[in-house]
């Protein structure tokens, strides 16, 4: 068996929430002076008994709890889990962007981490200059970059524009160049965070291919992604992280179904009032969801081709008498996170004035989805603002069962495609002697 190149031992990371100090020297001095004279701290929070105590009880958030695992040379490990589970924290610690609170990570060899593509790119510099700068930021020496320069340019497919400032590049070109640099790092250990979410499909395939090559050369890859298909495609082993702990560790084909299953049981319950892996300011929040058929009966799933079904959600305010003007979006994605459908109130020119607990009914006139499992996100946006009220990713699972979309033709669940439309195929023979139409 190949040797261990990363050993993570009892790793924990705690974040302190809220204030550590008051954030300004002035306030700290003021508090210090008051304490010195025996007065009450003018900056103490009203009702708080004791800051020390508060810190220890409420103000800490454990992003990682006592995590241990080994990685052997040449393994490609996928790290999966929900938003806020601790995946990114783990990568940040391995990448040395931040230090752990306790525990150690021992590493053999050079680590290159790609938490973002194009870190440090300067818009005014040319592609060529940025290759050198970005390469150096990622830990390459100038000589090394010179050696690989042609390879990088070829991989990025932007040969013609290499001496153009990158501010003139399209976003696709920018990403290609950035990934090309990263792909040629040749580290012993490569740490990648979801960078594949960008770029067109063809380039994504190229990147995945490159990552596979990297591991064939005996290198080790740690890969964080929400895209199950990419993880399945690339990784031999998967670490499932949940609430800061390793929930499962094993071969990809065993862990991913388990993950999706867990997802299903968690999400299909349809009640997510208690979920805290959500974003937004929280004046109003999504509470639960249920599905109804054309009779208004609550159902567990829809059928392909079913008409006049609805997805209904319950919304509740944080405090009574709260009124907001909001837009709402429901997106339906495949299990790899690829967005298929979005139902936007904005596109219908609908703005809702919410006042007190309310329900929203997304009426779907006909189901164009093929049988399978789909993941839905719910978004409650601020009308005329940026920060949403509530955004729940992976809010619930939408299950579609086989049904009759086309007359007399039942869809099956064995097909890989996701979408179906009304169609027919006609046959007509061209009479002899006539030219092609």
């Amino acid at each position, binding site marked *: 068996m190949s*040797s*261990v190149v990363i*050993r993570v031992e009892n790793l924990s990371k705690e*974040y*302190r929430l809220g204030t*550590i*100090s008051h*954030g*300004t*020297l*002035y306030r*700290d001095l003021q508090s210090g002076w008051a304490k010195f004279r025996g007065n009450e701290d003018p900056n103490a929070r009203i009702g708080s008994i004791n800051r020390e105590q508060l810190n220890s009880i409420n103000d800490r958030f454990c992003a990682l709890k006592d995590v*241990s695992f*080994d990685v052997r040379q040449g393994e490609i490990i996928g790290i999966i889990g929900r938003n806020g589970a601790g995946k990114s924290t783990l990568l*940040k*610690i*391995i*990448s*040395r*962007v*931040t*230090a*752990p*609170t*306790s*525990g*150690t*990570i*021992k*590493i*053999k*060899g*050079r*680590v290159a*981490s790609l*938490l*973002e593509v194009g*870190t*440090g790119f*300067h818009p*005014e*510099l040319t592609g060529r*200059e940025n290759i*050198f*700068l970005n390469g*150096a*930021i*990622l*830990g390459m*020496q*100038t000589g090394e970059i010179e050696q690989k320069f042609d390879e990088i340019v070829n991989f990025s497919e932007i040969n013609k524009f290499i001496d153009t*400032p990158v501010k003139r590049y399209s976003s696709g070109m920018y990403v290609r160049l950035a990934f090309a640099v990263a792909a040629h790092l040749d580290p012993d250990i490569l740490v990648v965070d979801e960078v594949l979410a960008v770029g067109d499909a063809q380039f994504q395939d190229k990147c995945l291919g490159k990552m596979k090559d990297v591991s064939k050369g005996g290198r080790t890859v740690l890969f964080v992604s929400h895209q199950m298909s990419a993880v399945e495609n690339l990784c031999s082993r998967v670490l499932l992280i949940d609430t800061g702990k390793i929930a499962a560790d094993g071969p990809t084909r065993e862990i991913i179904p388990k993950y999706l299953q867990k997802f299903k049981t968690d999400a299909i319950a349809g009640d997510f009032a208690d979920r805290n892996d959500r974003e937004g300011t929280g004046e109003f929040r999504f509470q639960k969801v249920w599905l109804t058929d054309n009779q208004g009966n609550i159902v567990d799933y829809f059928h392909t081709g079913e008409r006049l079904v609805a997805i209904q959600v319950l919304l509740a305010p944080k405090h009574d008498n709260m009124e907001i003007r909001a837009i709402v979006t429901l997106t339906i994605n495949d299990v790899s996170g690829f967005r298929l459908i979005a139902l936007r109130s904005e596109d219908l020119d609908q703005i809702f004035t919410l006042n007190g607990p309310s329900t929203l009914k997304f009426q779907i006139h006909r189901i164009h989805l093929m049988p399978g499992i789909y993941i839905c996100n719910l978004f409650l946006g601020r009308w005329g603002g940026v920060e949403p009220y509530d955004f729940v990713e992976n809010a619930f699972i939408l299950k579609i069962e086989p049904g009759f979309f086309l007359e007399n033709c039942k869809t099956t669940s064995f097909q890989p495609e996701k979408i179906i439309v009304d169609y027919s195929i006609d046959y007509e023979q061209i009479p002899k002697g006539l030219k092609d139409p």
Partner: protein
Amino acid sequence: MTSSDDDSNWTMEIRSRSGWFDIDLSELWRYRDLILLFVRRDFVAYYKQTVLGPLWFLLQPLFSTIVFTVIFSNIAHISTDGLPPFLFYMSGTVAWTYFASCMTQTSNTFITNAGIFGKVYFPRLVVPVAVVISNLITFAIQFGLFLVFLASFYLTGSTIQPNVWLLLVPLLLVQMAALGLGMGILISSMTTKYRDLTFALGFGVQLWMYATPIVYPLSQIPAKWQWLFALNPMTAIIETFRYAFLGSGAIQPWVLGVSLAMTILILALGIVLFSHVEKTFMDTI
């Protein structure tokens, strides 16, 4: 977890932020290419964005010098040790500008680079060191201007006497860089906790300038306060710089010694604090 055969040869160990002296300066040397590339980036980006690039660098000391000459010499009649006021102020301004820009531009290292620091690891000191070197280019331009004026005054028979102390000028430059860097990283480490320091800095730099013999000569300070000025490390630097080019000043070797000691102390303190903060500042910013 039990394979003990490969428990040796780890190239790196990541652990919690522990001691205060967990500092690895050799790493900085390994990243020297990056330092140079940052310098290049700053330089290229600056010149691509401004039409008047280098001209602006020339105007700035020129204006300060003219303003100082009018206000402090012509109106307030403050002594310049018998030197031509224009050269007197310009020598001080050019040297001070280098120090001050090193300090102010490195003092926001963590805040302005939070984006890049949050995504990739490299020794954080690379950034302030690159800033100090970038500023050397600006200094060279302004220093060139000073030399032009110096030569023209010299050739028209002014009383200035450039002397053997000129040999110290490169060392003074290194000392200013070290002091500016030390102060800058000290402040930047503290701004991660105290944001209001950034506002205090602009004001502080002004005050510090007037506490340094730039618009007045050290010889004007009463003997009983000389020790206080000696504590300001910039005093010796400016006085020596001026003395080397113009041949008049009141610098004493022990003051230079104190200044050097202060510089080393501030730089060391800066590096210690900076290295301590860099490991977890991403969590607080």
